[in-house]
């Protein structure tokens, strides 16, 4: 850590980890209700549990991006953050809004569009939070050095905020509602969030591999070009069956198939840079998360996305557990792991901590990641059976659900394993180890590459 104001990132990273814990707890709860459907059914119905599960995820990921930006911008721009005080106010406003939303959900106060359930006042609060961030970060960027990493990151965060404005537009015509709803949902996660992902990975590669900035930033532009050139028209794969014209099947088939390419490019990029750099960075755990992120994003978003993206396949799989399988691994691989990578990298510097409990963190990595992979497999099997019985043979929905009950048990098991892994990761990041480092144990004391 070179700049004092980077410290504000701590608020965001701890806040994000808190909401991460809530997200996973509610996920396990939802998985439990799948196998014990009478559990809490009158006090806390499934729709509320799921709402908290998905909303906590989205908010903690965003909070993590803000934290990453506040950590990375001073080093990239070689200047202090424009107003650290504003950043702290912004954090508390965001945290209070998120907390108020969750408490409101528990009492049945919510709107009704998936992922955009926040009551109007909370949505307005989110916009204010975003404006505070954009002002603060843009002023920082303007007074300092402008690098490709900081430019791409800021373009992405501006677009995140602009696209969120579509959350305020809710036409009475359901087909129109759905078409513009994807402007937020798809263009975030399969569009501009990929820019955030690529720029943070690029930052981590510069710091940890020592490869020349020129090389890395050229790769960055190529990766983000691939992301948006495929991802924007890739929206077509959501416009197959909601009342939009038939030509979206052609557009969706072609461009969403190509959406695999940027994810593959990110895998190649990360591994090539580590190989090329040949540098032995002491924070092995951060490197593991970075490489793991690119690989799991490729499988979760890329391969599992491609599996059901062709309209001829999607006609049968749309809205089955196949979608759930893809959703879980894509969010975990791309965005959860991205955040954990930058947290694992930054927190030891922010806390001026040595030793950093890397072994525990890496145990958490392997347990969480394998459990998420297993969860994805179980949901995929459930989805394949469901697709065949329901969509091909025409068996009734509830009857089919009984047939796949075994997979929901296995999903609950993997959910519990995820929870254990997450506890290890969070523990390793938040709790200071009491032991003094043994001789030979890795110490995070090396300076960043530049």
């Amino acid at each position, binding site marked *: 850590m070179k700049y004092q104001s980077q410290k504000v990132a701590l608020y965001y990273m701890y806040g994000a980890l808190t909401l991460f814990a809530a997200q996973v707890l509610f996920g396990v709860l939802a998985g439990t209700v799948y196998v014990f459907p009478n559990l809490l059914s009158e006090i806390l*119905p499934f729709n509320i549990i799921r709402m908290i599960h998905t909303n906590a995820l989205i908010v903690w990921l965003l909070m993590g991006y803000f934290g990453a930006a506040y950590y990375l911008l001073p080093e990239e721009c070689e200047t202090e953050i424009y107003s650290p005080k504003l950043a702290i106010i912004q954090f508390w406003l965001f945290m209070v809004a998120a907390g108020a939303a969750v408490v409101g959900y528990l009492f049945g106060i919510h709107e009704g569009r998936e992922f955009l359930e926040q009551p109007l006042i909370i949505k307005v609060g989110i916009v204010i939070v975003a404006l505070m961030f954009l002002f603060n970060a843009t002023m920082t960027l303007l007074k300092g050095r402008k690098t490709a990493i900081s430019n791409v990151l800021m373009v992405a965060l501006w677009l995140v905020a602009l696209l969120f404005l579509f959350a305020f537009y809710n036409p009475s015509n359901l087909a129109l509602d759905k078409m513009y709803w994807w402007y937020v949902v798809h263009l975030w996660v399969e569009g501009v969030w990929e820019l955030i992902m690529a720029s943070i990975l690029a930052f981590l590669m510069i710091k940890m591999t020592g490869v020349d900035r020129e090389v890395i930033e050229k790769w960055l532009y190529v990766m983000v070009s691939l992301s948006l050139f495929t991802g924007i028209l890739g929206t077509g794969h959501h416009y197959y069956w909601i009342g939009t014209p038939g030509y979206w099947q052609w557009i969706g088939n072609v461009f969403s198939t190509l959406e695999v390419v940027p994810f593959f490019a990110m895998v190649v990029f990360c591994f090539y840079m580590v190989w090329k750099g040949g540098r032995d960075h002491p924070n092995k755990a951060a490197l593991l998360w970075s490489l793991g992120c690119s690989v799991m994003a490729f499988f979760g978003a890329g391969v599992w996305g491609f599996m059901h993206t062709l309209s001829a396949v999607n006609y049968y799989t749309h809205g089955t557990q196949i979608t759930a399988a893809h959703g879980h691994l894509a969010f975990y691989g791309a965005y959860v792991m991205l955040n954990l990578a930058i947290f694992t990298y930054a927190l030891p510097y922010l806390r001026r901590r040595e030793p950093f409990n890397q072994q525990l963190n890496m145990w958490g990595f392997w347990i969480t990641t394998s459990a998420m992979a297993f969860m994805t497999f179980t949901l995929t099997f459930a989805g394949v059976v469901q697709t065949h019985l329901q969509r091909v043979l025409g068996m009734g929905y509830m009857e089919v659900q009984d047939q796949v009950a075994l997979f929901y048990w296995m999903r609950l098991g993997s959910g519990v394993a995820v929870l254990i892994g997450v506890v290890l990761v969070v523990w390793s990041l938040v709790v200071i180890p009491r032991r003094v480092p043994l001789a030979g144990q890795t110490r995070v004391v090396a300076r960043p590459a530049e």
Partner: protein
Amino acid sequence: MSERLTKSAARNIFYGGTIFFLVVFLGLTLHSHIYIKTVSTDESKLSPSVVAGKHIWERHSCINCHTLLGEGAYYAPELGNVWVRYGGEDDPEGARDTLKAWMAVQPTGIEGRRQMPQFNLTDPELDQLIDFLEWTSKIDTQNWPPNEAG
């Protein structure tokens, strides 16, 4: 990566290409907007009751258990075609009564069965919600879902 591609060239490709694809996308969205309003949905039947039904659908967050045109949670049946599944095309009154009766007995409390909450909708509200589901079932969805099971 090739030495011929400079960083500034890569940057220009990124910004230029993004603007190009955005313009194409916005153009297609505009066309789709008009298509939805004039071809795939029947806006003349988008009555105040259908709109009120959509708000009831949203107020109770039905989407976080059910799917609607395949989007939503995957915990409860697809409702985009529930009107068709309940025989509303041949016997609208019968389908309406069956749907209302179904809503009235929730939650069933049957052990081991997924529970739908009791939303305590009034009779006019139930009519509005069903109007919304009926309207939705008539959207031209390129023949999705494949069968009545939804």
